[in-house]
């Protein structure tokens, strides 16, 4: 919200306080000033145009002015024609830098000297009006412009949603006064009342149909107004707050909105059918042509102001064109009402129309504010538009604002802040903010917040009021610490435990990624992993409308992105939850959120390269699971969505399936616009963490080992694991380890067969084995393999 420093001076004495100091003080008390723009016009002087004539030679339209500067007259050339003789204008003399940054020079334009520049409002940064020279309505030639237009400083302040009272200059000024320890110059409630006869309430009929949605409606009658432009000072203040001046009546209602935060509306009373105002819900099919020229369909959810026949305004949002003030308007109805915040928000949202008024009503305004705003506006109308304000307005107030009372134990302030604030200081702060404090016999305080503060209701709120003005900078930082007789032992977090897996992966060349959990639901369906996916009902876009059920689609996209950017051999992983709608569980609607590890790696372009990559990925699974302290995984041939039907394994930890690994299905790779082959794995981590155990040391062998290789020739379909099982069974105890290390097809191996080489290590824990003993075991192994798998042997 834009705040004018000059405007604040109406309410609080800012002598000796620079705009920057004021901005800092506001930030300190909780009104964050995001930026401060200072417009310094002190170098500009006032001139009076004595003579204006057209430049005879210039091809452009230029006007030559003789300008009285008090002590002398200068010749100044301008492009705009509006500085007619007699006009008071702002003059920038040669050597002056105008607020918009332009340096004025001593010029000669086609034979005529130009000793300065007449400024537009835009050049002085007073508005975006560049249609002509700014014509002043007061001032003395030769005087500085600051004698009529003070230097401007505009703050962009952020007002938190609990403080609608600060969505106006008066509320801001009150905060500033408290922050600077100064008193407010004006009372919240203006004393102004109308005097004209007859009583306003007899001139208009007001009713509220739905007191839940409108708790107060004040309709003030003012007759005999003269519609015209507002004075410059008022226009300037509106412009400083980015509001366009229209006419004095509309400008005054905007002015009071920006001052008191109370939205107002001015109707042309002659256009209200039956002289009636009804606050009611819109009827189905009703429409309203609004002030912005848009014809809007209304629904019964929306609250409207209607005359005897039809809606004339959408309550709290925007007025209607037909009942608006025009140049011909003489009698007006001034509306100051209190509309229900959620209702206004809903209406504004449904219409896609957020106005200065709706932005304030949305937050929930106090009904007492309506009267203050109405009085202020009536006073200004009477002063600036010459109207007769009638006495005793219509004021329908079905639910008077409940006063709030808070019982405060004042020592709570020190207890919560952790610093001593003297009681009289606390009391002074509350009083400056408009609170009434009555000290009771037992030392407790009976506190009444001001009527415009609906956000204060519990003692902690009062602590905050005192604290923010006293200054949190004065609270010394401390660390809490008292003797505890209860605790829970420290255990490493899941994230920290999984760092072991991250280190394995980093060592193996894999880089961790964090990918968005919201992905395209259509893509999940195309990949056939969307069956249990949760779809967002209000997605921002369809490429992130669904929660992912697998980490792999994201990781495959990562490979694609990095390949596009020139990378080869991409190896990436992610540790994150996926989201699976529950099947058949009615106890909770929340989905399962299993924590997963997903890994994807480039696997070259050939069947062979990808086979090698498959086995490398198996080692990654083993390494990741093993490093967490879980027992070894087993692998079973399987088929799964996303995976190559001949190159996919289910990963098991004991009897529990953790997930799948393998080469990705060629159609999946193609679906995501990739070429070549990829290997991947995705496993659940929760069961791995649950199975983790402390590693127990094995004693080191005391006797030497004997190593043998064995090349087993079997038919293609015999799996290495099956051969292994036979070897282990035949060898009994002497075999310390056995591991397949090579597969061979070709010379010496019959068609349809393969040769699998194993490395065997024999060792006894009790003695040194002899070659003869090992030869005997090897012979038994061969015999078993021949019998079970018809194996032959290569040497």
């Amino acid at each position, binding site marked *: 919200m834009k705040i004018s420093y000059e405007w604040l001076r109406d309410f609080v004495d800012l002598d000796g306080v620079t705009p920057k100091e004021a901005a800092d003080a506001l930030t300190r008390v909780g009104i964050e000033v995001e930026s401060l723009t200072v417009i310094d016009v002190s170098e500009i002087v006032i001139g009076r145009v004595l003579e204006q004539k057209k430049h005879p030679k210039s091809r452009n339209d230029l006007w030559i002015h003789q300008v009285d500067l008090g002590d002398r007259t200068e010749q100044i050339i301008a492009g705009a024609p509006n500085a007619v003789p007699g006009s008071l204008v702002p003059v920038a003399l040669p050597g002056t830098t105008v607020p918009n940054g332009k340096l004025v020079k001593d010029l000669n334009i086609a034979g005529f000297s130009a000793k300065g520049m007449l400024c537009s409002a835009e050049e002085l940064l007073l508005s975006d009006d560049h249609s002509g020279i700014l014509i002043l309505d007061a001032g003395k030639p030769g005087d500085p412009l600051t004698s009529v237009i003070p230097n401007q400083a505009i703050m962009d302040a952020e007002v938190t949603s609990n403080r609608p009272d600060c969505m106006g200059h008066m509320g801001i000024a009150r905060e500033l006064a408290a922050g600077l320890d100064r008193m407010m110059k004006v009372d919240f409630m203006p004393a102004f009342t109308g005097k004209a006869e007859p009583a306003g309430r007899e001139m208009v009929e007001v009713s509220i149909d739905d007191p839940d949605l409108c708790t107060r409606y004040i309709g003030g009658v003012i007759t005999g107004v003269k519609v015209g432009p507002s004075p410059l000072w008022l226009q300037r203040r509106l412009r400083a707050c980015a509001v366009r001046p229209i006419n004095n009546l509309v400008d005054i209602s905007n002015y009071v909105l920006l001052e008191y935060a109370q939205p107002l509306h001015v109707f042309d009373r002659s256009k209200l059918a039956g002289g009636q105002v009804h606050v009611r819900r819109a009827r189905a099919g009703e429409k309203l042509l609004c002030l912005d020229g848009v014809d809007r369909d209304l629904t019964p959810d929306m609250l409207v102001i209607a005359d005897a026949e039809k809606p004339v305004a959408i309550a709290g949002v925007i007025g209607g064109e037909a009942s608006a003030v025009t140049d011909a308007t003489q009698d007006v109805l001034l509306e100051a009402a209190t509309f229900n915040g959620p209702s206004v928000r809903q209406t504004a949202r449904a219409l896609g129309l957020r106005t200065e008024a709706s932005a304030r009503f949305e937050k929930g305004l106090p009904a007492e504010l309506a009267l203050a705003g109405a009085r202020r506006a009536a006073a200004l109308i009477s002063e600036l538009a010459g109207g007769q304000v009638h006495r005793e307005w219509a004021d329908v107030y079905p639910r008077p604002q409940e006063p709030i009372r808070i019982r405060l134990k004042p020592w709570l302030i020190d207890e*919560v*802040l952790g610093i001593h604030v003297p009681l009289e200081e606390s009391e002074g702060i509350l009083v400056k903010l408009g609170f009434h404090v009555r000290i009771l016999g037992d030392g407790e305080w009976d506190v009444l917040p001001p009527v415009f503060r609906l956000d204060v209701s519990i003692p*902690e709120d009062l602590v*905050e009021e005192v604290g923010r003005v006293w200054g949190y900078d004065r609270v010394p*930082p*401390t660390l809490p610490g008292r003797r505890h007789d209860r605790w829970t032992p420290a255990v490493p977090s899941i994230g920290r435990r999984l760092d072991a897996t991250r280190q394995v992966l980093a060592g193996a060349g894999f880089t*961790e990624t964090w990918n968005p959990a919201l992905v395209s639901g259509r893509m999940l369906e195309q990949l056939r992993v969307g069956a249990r996916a949760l779809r967002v009902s209000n997605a921002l876009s369809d490429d992130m409308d669904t*929660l992912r059920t697998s980490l792999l689609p994201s990781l495959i996209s990562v490979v694609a992105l990095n390949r596009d950017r020139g990378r080869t051999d991409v190896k990436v992983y992610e540790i994150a939850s996926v989201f699976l709608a529950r099947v058949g569980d009615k106890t909770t609607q*929340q989905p399962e*959120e299993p924590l997963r590890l997903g890994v994807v790696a480039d696997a070259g372009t050939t069947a062979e390269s990808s086979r090698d990559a498959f086995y490398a990925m198996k080692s990654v699974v083993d390494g990741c699971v093993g490093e967490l302290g879980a027992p070894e995984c087993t692998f079973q041939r399987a088929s799964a969505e996303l995976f190559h039907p001949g190159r996919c394994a289910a990963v098991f930890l004991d009897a529990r399936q953790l997930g799948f690994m393998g080469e990705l299905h060629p159609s999946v790779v193609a679906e995501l616009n990739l070429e070549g082959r990829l290997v991947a794995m995705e496993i659940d981590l929760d069961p791995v963490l649950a199975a983790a155990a402390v590693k127990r040391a094995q004693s080191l062998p005391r006797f030497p080992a004997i190593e043998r290789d064995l090349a087993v020739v079997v038919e293609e379909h015999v799996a290495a694991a099956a051969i292994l099982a036979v070897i282990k069974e035949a060898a009994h105890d002497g075999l310390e380890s056995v591991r397949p290390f090579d597969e061979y097809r070709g010379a010496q191996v019959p068609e349809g067969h393969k040769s699998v080489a194993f490395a065997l290590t024999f060792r006894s824990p009790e003695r040194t084995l002899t070659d003869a003993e090992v030869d005997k075991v090897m012979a038994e192994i061969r015999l078993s393999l021949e019998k079970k798998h018809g194996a032959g042997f290569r040497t």
Partner: protein
Amino acid sequence: MTDPRSLTDEALAAIGQARTESELAAIEVDYLGRKNGRISVLLSGIGKLPPAERAALGQGANEAKRAIESALAAKRHQLEDERLADIAETEAIDITFPGPPLGRGHLHVLTQVQRQIETVLESLGYKVELGPEVETEWYNFEALNIPPEHPARENWDSFYFTPDLLLRAHTSPVQIRAMQRIKEPPIYIITPGRCYRRDPPEATRLPYFSQVEGLAVDKGLTVGDMKGTLLYMIQSLYGEERKVRVRPSYFPFTEPSFEFDVSCGICAGAGCKSCRYKGWLEVGGCGMVHPQVLRNGGIDPEKWNGYAWGFGIERMAMLKHDIEDIRLFYESDLRFLEQF
């Protein structure tokens, strides 16, 4: 016939002239070889000698053998010393040539920063708590004193699945769940995790991000304790010279509420381009836990009070590593991720 002494002299002379290990090896075989070495040959005739001379020859041969062995050893030592004296030149390599790529992968910078934050807070006794990312309306809003129609709700515009089920907008629901589970304070927890808000992606915000929130519930906690905790955390992460300030603000779940800022690391608070001339960088929100929120967590606010805070991990990482665009964290470009 040669005698042991002249054999020895001959051998020592040859050793003296030898320049390489292979020459020495040849000399060794020539004199000391088991079958055809000259000493063996000399001794092979010992049986033909009279017994009285046998002993003398045997002794002489042994002495010759020892002398040659020791001369060989000495000469080898000398050659090795000479070789070592020269390796600075003979074996010099170009140490400016780079090593081969290590081929290692990288932990995500957000993982690293999150862990640093956890480490600092764990050193103060806080424990990590986790919770679901898909939450109910009650845990995400109502328990945090944000009833339906609350004007502040627009600050947490959320993704919904059903009217009651949404992606959590902050990790605060984990605070409520933790209070309900732990029941009896002291409670000192931190809640790292992913959050979601319906903000279109841009350089400073994303619809998905990660937070670390903290919660302390104990007896007699103060705003000063909260400030001290934040200052300890910031100084531990960014250096002892950093300052923290709290500015009054508003959240429905804390009273009083604050924004907390860190002094700019470049200008130390004086104001510069990087802090937009404010001297301070906004980091997160904090405050004393609202009594109603304690009640919603099953804690009696008459007996206990607390403070809480929250901030984005991305923001902390951006400050620490001079990262200017939040989208880099989730775009997964390896050229970015491999920098950390």
